[in-house]
């Protein structure tokens, strides 16, 4: 029997009368969750508490951060001392606050102490949390955190080709789709001739124990080592002139300085990321706040395809094995007919990951933008204040309140309109109580708000030095593998 439970905060009945502590059995999250609320309703705070509680229960977490807030997880200081907050005092102060930073930090520390004490969290709990968790921040295309080699399943040969060729092939397919999208060509693995040709050429090398970096594929395009694809002669399937065009496009991409940063850093290996090391439960934050919309969709598409591949390689489980959290999913899981690269893997995760014990929690301020398949698969709903009629109607549809009657739906809509910040109407499909009010506890991590790249760099440095965690350097050297250096070696 799974006894893990997440102490998210407090609950009350919908009329606001007395309730009690809110404990969510962790395995309820295998049927996924949706957090919806207007700006300022406290969605990010709730997600942070959810992540912290999962980590406290030794459940690894992969966080996808679009807005820049969730690297705040690095700010889970082990003490309540004002000195911890000193580097963040100027960022937290208003523009015309003339006080010394020490005074501001002292005030922030006191506010933090009072807020956490109200939820029975003191330095003991903070230190235990910090000692048992390991936070990584990965920033694809930027060196603020760890760089990410988004084409690693293409350019770095994985052992999976020996023991799980199907999942290796799926990851390869996603990487080739990304390359073709960057080239402005058809990325569909089932229809695109380019995709088929590059897949065949790459797989041939990977199965032979070699890597298949783009430079090598260029040579293969110029002097193909194969004569047939499927039942057709190569020349009939993909004539020489077309191959030359494709090679020229690939070469332009290869020569682009921007593209270079996508081919350096940590290998995209979700299984390895989420494996506890040194007794610490990992939280991996992939932050794409610094990228533009197209880049975000491309990178997250590849990342999520890799997550799907990893999930499918797991044995079945009814307990929550890992949690995937996606803040600000707006635009990445839209209704038909929009189809960004992130949609297919997200829908697949929400439909299939439960069998493997992997929960997905998405948050958005715009429920109109969510695909109905994602809404329909969510077992946990946390609804913050919603002021727009259509948004309220959409989430009430998603809650499938048809069986409980229109009066209940109307009452719930009114409740959503009146909710104070940091309060949510929560409905857990596994619980018998129906909808209740839920107030997340104070987050252990200091909620600084969206972090700049410089701040992420500073926070990572401080986190590693105080946690005695190994430093992961993205060298971008010849093989591009992450290098690990322990602070004691520095």
């Amino acid at each position: 029997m799974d006894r893990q439970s997440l102490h998210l905060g407090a609950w009350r009945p919908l009329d606001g009368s007395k309730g009690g502590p809110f404990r969510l059995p962790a395995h309820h999250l295998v049927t996924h969750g949706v957090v919806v609320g207007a700006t300022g309703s406290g969605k990010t705070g709730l997600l942070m508490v959810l992540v912290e509680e999962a980590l406290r229960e030794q459940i690894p977490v992969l966080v996808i951060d679009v807005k820049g807030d969730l690297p705040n997880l690095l700010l889970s200081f082990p003490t309540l001392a004002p000195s911890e907050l000193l580097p963040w005092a100027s960022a937290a102060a208003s523009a015309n606050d003339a006080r010394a930073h020490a005074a501001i930090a002292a005030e922030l520390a006191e506010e933090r102490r009072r807020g956490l004490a109200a939820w029975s969290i003191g330095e003991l709990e903070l230190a235990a949390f910090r000692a048992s968790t390991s936070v990584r921040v990965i920033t694809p295309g930027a060196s603020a955190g760890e760089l990410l080699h988004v084409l690693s399943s293409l350019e770095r040969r994985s052992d999976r080709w020996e023991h799980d060729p199907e999942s290796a092939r799926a990851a390869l397919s996603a990487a080739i789709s990304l390359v073709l999208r960057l080239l402005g060509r058809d990325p569909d693995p089932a229809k695109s001739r380019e995709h088929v040709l590059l897949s065949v050429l790459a797989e041939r090398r990977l199965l032979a124990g070699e890597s298949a970096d783009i430079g090598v594929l260029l040579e293969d395009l110029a002097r193909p080592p194969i004569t047939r694809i499927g039942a057709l002669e190569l020349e009939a399937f993909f004539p020489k002139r077309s191959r030359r065009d494709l090679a020229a496009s690939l070469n332009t991409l290869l020569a682009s300085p921007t593209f270079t940063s996508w081919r350096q850093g940590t290998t995209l290996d979700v299984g390895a990321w989420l494996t506890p090391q040194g007794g610490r439960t990992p939280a991996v934050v992939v932050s794409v706040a610094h990228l533009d919309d197209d880049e975000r969709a491309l990178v997250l598409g590849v990342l999520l395809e890799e997550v799907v591949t990893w999930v499918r390689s797991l044995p079945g489980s009814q307990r929550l094995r890992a949690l995937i959290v996606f803040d600000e999913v707006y635009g990445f899981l839209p209704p038909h007919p929009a189809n960004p690269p992130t949609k297919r893997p997200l829908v697949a995760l929400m439909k299939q990951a439960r069998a493997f014990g992997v929960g997905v929690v998405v948050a958005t301020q715009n429920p109109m933008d969510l695909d109905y398949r994602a809404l329909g698969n969510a077992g946990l709903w946390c609804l913050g204040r919603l002021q727009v009629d259509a948004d309220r109607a959409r989430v009430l549809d998603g809650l499938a309140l048809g069986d409980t009657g229109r009066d209940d739906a109307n009452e719930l809509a009114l409740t959503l309109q009146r909710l104070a910040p940091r309060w949510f109407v929560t409905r857990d499909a596994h619980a018998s109580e129906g909808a209740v009010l839920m107030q997340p506890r104070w987050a252990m991590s200091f909620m600084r708000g969206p972090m700049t790249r410089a701040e992420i760099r500073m926070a990572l440095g401080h986190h590693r030095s105080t946690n005695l965690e190994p430093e992961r350097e993205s060298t971008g050297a010849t093989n591009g593998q992450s290098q690990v250096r322990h602070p004691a070696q520095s």
Partner: protein
Amino acid sequence: MSQSNVTDVSGPVPRFRDAYQTLLEEMRAVQADKLTIVNLDIPTAVTTVLGALPQIRAIRAQVIATMPQFDIARFDKLEAYTLAVGYANSLYLAASQPSESIEALAEAGGTMRDLLVAEATTLAQRRLIDGQRLKELKGANGYRNLAVDLFTLAAMVREVWPTLGGKTTLQLSELDQAETLADKLLTAVGQREQGPAVIATSAENRQRAFTLFISAYDNVRRVVTFLRWHEDDVDEIAPSLYGKGTRRKSHDTLPPLPAPAAKPATSPSVEEVQAAISTGNGKTAPVGVGLPDSEPFIGR
């Protein structure tokens, strides 16, 4: 207000639509990363601002006199922005409404198809129509197939109608009805398929109109706050659209107040206003937010 103003109902609708049309270019020019999320009930916001416009216009002269550098043209366009967002919202709501139920149309269409097939089969047996064409019917599965069959069957019977005389119980009105059902069915299917795209476009237009509106009204509220600081009646002249007591502390990150050309003796300095907003003075910041005993509802 004169009687003619009260009874004149010809103005409002074109007024909303005209404002929307006039501002279309400006709306389209709003950059995607500057769009504001719609976080208000727009009809309520529109009625609030339209109701406040006379009081707001009353301080126009004072704005010009005190702040010659203030963008008065934008101030003057507040009404247009308000009307435009009202119209954009109605377009969005119209696009979001479910069209005529496909299921109901399909049920009626199916019944009509059965009737026409039965009659056409009889007529084919009498060699009054070509029986081969009946075999080419697509079947009742699928809305499109059903609509195409209705059109085909109605056309087959119409072609031979003059020769049928009294050999059928069908009425011409039933053929009309079959064609109408087919037409409605295809339209409903098309709307269902295009619906999300139409909704997405109207939602984006609404968001663009809302961005212009909320930005203009915020500006007006800031200037009223500045000019009427000592009277403390900003909410009477330009009421907050977010309700009392819910103003977020993050307002201290709003752009600076417009600087006056000459500092009025009766008004506080820009710094004083900003300081008062940033500290909140305990007037608007909810007490104990995030603590276990905080109120779950606003305004209790």
